[in-house]
């Protein structure tokens, strides 16, 4: 199954299991989603549960919040993460704070699903990976899988979670990666990272479309003399600090990879955490391989995005410090 098929499978399972789960978004109903993530679901579950919305992100999230507060489990889609900003006020001022400001009287269980990241020649407005705006907002959980198995399990967990979850899907990998995905329901725990490759020399922390690049980098590094451990964070908030720190304490060298711009990217948070909690184990500076501090480019996208070779060069830098 591909990642986008895993999304659809998770939605199908949860909608069958729980009548309160509803979908809404641009082109999700009749069209089945521009990436086919919701294909056939309106036909199966009806227009009352799979709703085509106007092109109005703040309305999509506002309406979803109204549904969530009133007992439904909405899974609104934002067609590209780049489009989410009109809904930012709804997310930050309303969705993220309703439990807190109502002292738990009102809650907002919902999953905002959105394809994120570059690598598909999407240019400035179809390539952003702006998870950092949401990891910085208390009240939200932020999940970012890298493979079909985790995608289905995490999306099911997110839908069942009592808190609002921002669920980011790496569109570069939508069809490019296939994996074994069990039929029926299963969950992957939110808040747990996964060590996808064990190694003793250098820890690579990554998520989303950077995970396959990190694994390729690890293969490049082995003959160059560095045995890499690759940790797929899977959830950014709440962060799995024990798994991350255990790996750092083991290797003493860290490379963090994200496609989002360097300044105040989530790698900055990870760097601060590691410096606070494990500085005595570090044998080299923490190195971040990140996108440039520029808008996401079109023609030179392959120069902008961290790739296996750039990650391998960073590994070499910390290994030889």
């Amino acid at each position, binding site marked *: 199954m591909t990642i*986008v098929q895993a999304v659809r499978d998770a939605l199908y399972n949860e909608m069958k299991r729980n009548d309160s789960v509803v979908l809404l978004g641009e082109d999700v109903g009749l069209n089945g989603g521009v990436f086919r993530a919701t294909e056939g679901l309106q036909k199966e579950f009806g227009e009352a549960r799979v709703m085509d919305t106007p092109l109005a992100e703040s309305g999509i999230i506002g309406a979803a919040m109204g549904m969530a507060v009133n007992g439904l489990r909405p899974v609104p889609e934002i067609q590209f993460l780049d489009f989410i900003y009109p809904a930012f006020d709804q997310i930050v001022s309303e969705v993220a704070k309703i439990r807190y400001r109502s002292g738990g009287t009102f809650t907002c269980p919902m999953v905002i699903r959105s394809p994120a990241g570059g690598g598909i020649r999407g240019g400035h407005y179809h390539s952003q990976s702006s998870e950092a705006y949401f990891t910085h907002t208390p009240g939200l959980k932020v999940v970012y899988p890298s493979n079909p198995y985790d995608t289905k399990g995490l999306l099911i967990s997110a839908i069942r979670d009592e808190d609002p979850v921002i669920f980011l899907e790496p569109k570069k990998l939508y069809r490019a990666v296939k994996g074994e995905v069990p039929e029926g329901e299963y969950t992957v725990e939110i808040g747990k990272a996964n060590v996808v490759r064990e190694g003793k020399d250098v820890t690579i922390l990554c998520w989303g479309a950077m995970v396959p690049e990190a694994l390729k980098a690890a293969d490049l590094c082995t003959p160059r003399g560095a045995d890499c451990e690759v940790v797929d964070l899977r959830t950014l908030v709440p962060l799995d600090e024990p798994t991350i720190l255990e790996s750092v304490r083991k290797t003493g060298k860290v490379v963090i990879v994200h496609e989002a711009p360097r300044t105040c990217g989530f790698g900055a948070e990870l760097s601060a955490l590691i410096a606070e909690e494990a500085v005595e184990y570090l044998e080299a500076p923490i190195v971040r391989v990140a996108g*440039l501090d*520029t808008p996401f480019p079109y023609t*030179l*996208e392959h120069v902008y995005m961290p790739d296996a070779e*750039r990650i391998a060069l960073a590994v070499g830098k910390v290994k030889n410090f």
Partner: protein
Amino acid sequence: MGWDHEDSLREEVKDHLIEAVEDVEKMPPPELETLFEDVYAELTPQLKKQKQALIAERELRGKFENTSEAFPL
């Protein structure tokens, strides 16, 4: 009325656009230095640093492979 004029204006603009696209598509890809242009009026210290780093990386690597996937529609 103005409708005939509008039709011919549309055609003219469309031809202009197609010509511009064809011209650009014939050009070689831009230099990587252009990645840093027009973010701000002037390059910030951070951008200068990132630009040096990328230029140094290009020296080391020679070229950057096109790893983009097709738009996953």
